[in-house]
């Protein structure tokens, strides 16, 4: 789980996700920064590129090349840099890989490289111990990425790619915005760094070295068969940050929110493939691309060229920022249930929503219009809480996984190129996670 803390009082405290039981007790907390896990508070980084092995969603092991912060293990994806607008950033890279490597910073316009040797795209650190230093000025807020600039068709697939987040000037963790303008404000944020790996490439590099690729067509005709969100395949995407069984894949990718929350999604095309990223539950508002707001002019007070999509074309190397919201508006039935045991009130504000529950009051008190089949006529999903109503659960027959004890509404967020939803030959997996919308007052951890 991301360390996402809401401004709502914590009530329900147990979260079970993807078979990972994590029970945390949290007292009422003041508002706190909703955040993405990464390296924050620093502007100088000592990175080492080195090899390690990662775990795939179905339990295989792949060689990868990653970035280690300091003397740690390499990680996939590379450390997420969380910077502040105006930071002068220095990254000293030591290369322990058997080939030269480098880093490029698309969208950063004051990049300079020193040391090392000249490469095609930037200066490179030589194999087996070479060093190079990069500096740049993070002068624009937004979502960016960095990745290998040395044979990226190999080294990005091998794992050398990471995210950069630049907080805007005046960033207030209690009232965060992505870029500063009010329409970029959010309650929770989540990173979607989308990548893929061709396991043939990794196996060959491990067994015979990079040069052996030249006698294959793996680079001209890639066959990726692992697809990742933040360096993990489903179902591991839904495990918490830093879980012990994924020592080199620290980053979770499981969003949670309440009705009416604004969820900021930072979407990065980190790999070489296009992916259509589909959000079940609602449209999202796409308001920035490549770290720049979509607006008619720099003077526009908001992103007036934002558009709404239900599936986003994630483009290799590019970044996109979205805001996702969900309220259940106009579903035509009361999402909190009707009748005995479901009593609740709805006091509409000017736009028709209850201030606290975010219920759409015109639907208040309307019963769900159809009967659900009896249990024996259906297959019960692992994230089904037993009730169609938000915040409610019901008794389920033995065998139901019951990964939704809060009675949240669960939505699959995934690449709609469904081929990306497998781990090699095993379905389901890949580029998939679940959004859980939980009832107001339910603590999000």
């Amino acid at each position, binding site marked *: 789980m991301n360390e996402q803390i809401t401004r709502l009082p914590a009530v329900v405290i147990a979260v079970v996700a993807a078979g990972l039981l994590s029970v945390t007790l949290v007292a009422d907390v003041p508002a706190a920064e909703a955040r993405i896990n990464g390296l924050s508070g620093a502007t100088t980084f000592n990175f080492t590129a080195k090899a390690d092995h990662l775990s795939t969603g179905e339990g295989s092991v792949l060689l990868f090349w990653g970035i280690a912060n300091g003397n740690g293990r390499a990680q996939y994806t590379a450390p997420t840099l969380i910077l502040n607008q105006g930071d002068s950033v220095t990254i000293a890279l030591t290369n322990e890989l058997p080939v030269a490597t480098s880093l490029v910073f698309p*969208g950063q316009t004051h990049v300079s490289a020193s040391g090392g040797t000249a490469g095609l795209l930037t200066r490179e650190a030589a194999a087996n111990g070479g060093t190079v230093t990069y500096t740049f000025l993070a002068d624009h807020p937004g979502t960016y990425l960095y990745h290998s600039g040395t044979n990226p068709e190999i080294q990005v697939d091998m794992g050398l790619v990471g995210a950069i987040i630049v907080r805007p000037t005046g960033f207030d963790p209690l009232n965060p915005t992505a870029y500063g303008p009010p329409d970029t404000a959010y309650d929770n944020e989540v990173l979607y760094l989308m990548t893929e790996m061709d396991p043939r490439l990794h196996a060959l590099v491990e067994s015979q070295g990079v040069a052996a690729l030249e006698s294959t067509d793996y680079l001209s*005709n890639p066959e990726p068969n692992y697809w990742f969100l933040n360096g993990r395949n489903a179902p591991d995407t839904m495990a918490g940050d830093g879980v012990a069984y994924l020592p080199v894949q620290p980053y979770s990718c499981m969003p949670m929110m309440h009705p009416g929350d604004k969820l900021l999604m930072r979407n990065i095309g980190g790999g070489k493939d296009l992916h259509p990223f589909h959000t079940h539950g609602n449209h999202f508002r796409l308001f920035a691309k*490549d770290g720049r707001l979509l607006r008619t002019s720099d003077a526009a007070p908001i992103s007036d060229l934002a558009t709404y999509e239900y599936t986003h074309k994630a483009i290799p*190397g590019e970044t996109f920022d979205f805001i996702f919201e969900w309220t259940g508006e106009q579903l035509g039935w009361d999402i909190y249930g009707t009748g005995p045991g479901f009593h609740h009130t709805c006091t509409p504000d000017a736009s028709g929503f209850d201030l606290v529950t975010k219920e759409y009051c015109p639907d208040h008190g309307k019963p769900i219009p159809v009967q659900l089949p009896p249990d024996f006529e259906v297959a019960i999903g692992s994230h089904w809480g037993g009730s169609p109503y938000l915040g409610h659960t019901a008794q389920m027959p033995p065998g139901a996984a019951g990964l939704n004890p809060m009675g949240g509404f669960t939505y699959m967020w995934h690449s709609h190129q469904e081929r990306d939803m497998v781990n090699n030959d095993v379905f389901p997996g890949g580029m998939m996670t679940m959004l859980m919308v939980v009832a107001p007052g339910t603590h999000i951890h």
Partner: protein
Amino acid sequence: MRYPITLRVAGSLLLAGSALALTTSAAHAADFYLVARGFDATLPDGAVVPMWGFAECDATFTSCGPTTSPGPTLRVPPGEPSPVVLNLHVRNELAVPTSAYIPDQLAALSPVKFTDAMGRARVRSLTAETPAGGDGLYTWPDLRPGTYLYHSGTHPQVQVQMGLLGVLVYDAAPGVAYPGVPYDAEALLVYSEIDPALHAAVADGTYGTPAYPSTFDYKPTYFLVNGAPYTPGTPPLSVGEPGDRVLLRLVNAALGHRAPQLLGGYLSLVAEEGHPLAFPGERYGTFLGAGTTQDAIFVAGAEGVYPIYDRMGSLTTNNVSGGGSYAFLSVAHNALVNVTPAPLSGSPAAGRPSAPQQDLTPGTPDPAGLDAPADRGAFGCGAAETGGAGGLALMIALALGALVGVRRRGGWRRS
């Protein structure tokens, strides 16, 4: 020192003198003469691949430039009142029918169909065929300004891949790509790719047999920019000075997608498929679907070499890294213009004079003659401009044009 505008107009009139085919007196016509023929291309790794390409010729097809892929960049002189009629005269020296087709320009088509074994009519040519050994004329009655891909519309899944493709450029006005989109310098980046197995199968007649049944089996291994895979040591494209508005004409003639990514700066996307975009926005990368074109403005803040490379990974040449779809844009004060590497071309046609790398117009100091391509093409306004000399100048211009991927700022903006 650049051409003053008067010289440029004079230059185009001089070239117009070689035009033979002209339309009605009311319309302004641009005529180009293309021959489709085969050639063997030698790729940087030494592989020799049978290709088909276009060469540009004079109006009688007696002298032609080199056969290349991409074919000659056809530049329709800007600034004439609309409608401007485009005539592409095609001579087919291939053994199969072919055609010229511009997917982003509207014209009535005369598709050619055949009846298959199941009795169904199906198209084999999106537009009228020029038979093997024959001549054809393709006309677009009202040309829109912009950057366009032209290619064969006949069995396109094979003929485009074989190399029958090129770029058409028609600016709204001199130095103005689209209304409201001026530029100081430009670079043309044409992406294409080659599956040598397909080419070999077409060449030896086994295409369509179990040896290579169809493009279902298509697997490109060479990824080209302006007709050549990147090779180390290739000089960057010189695109002007810091602060210049550099127009990048991005053309994807490949069957696969590309995602050109610029390092060190941002682009504004000013047009897609020849249609100006109201909101260019800012981005450092763009997505270029198969067979599509975009125009982007790049303004470099400082001198330097700016890489633009395919983020989708077509960065190999016959599976060797460090090649493929890399390009580099050089921005420097007092930049001299570089010539891009020649596109894939074969031996010159017999009897064709070689093209001297020299000034086209007396008195012009442009070191590489690079302003010349803007004036290429036989252009006539009304019947009064038929006839005249200028064939040699045209021929030289054609030959030069085939070599040029980058054009220096318009002289009409500075003198």
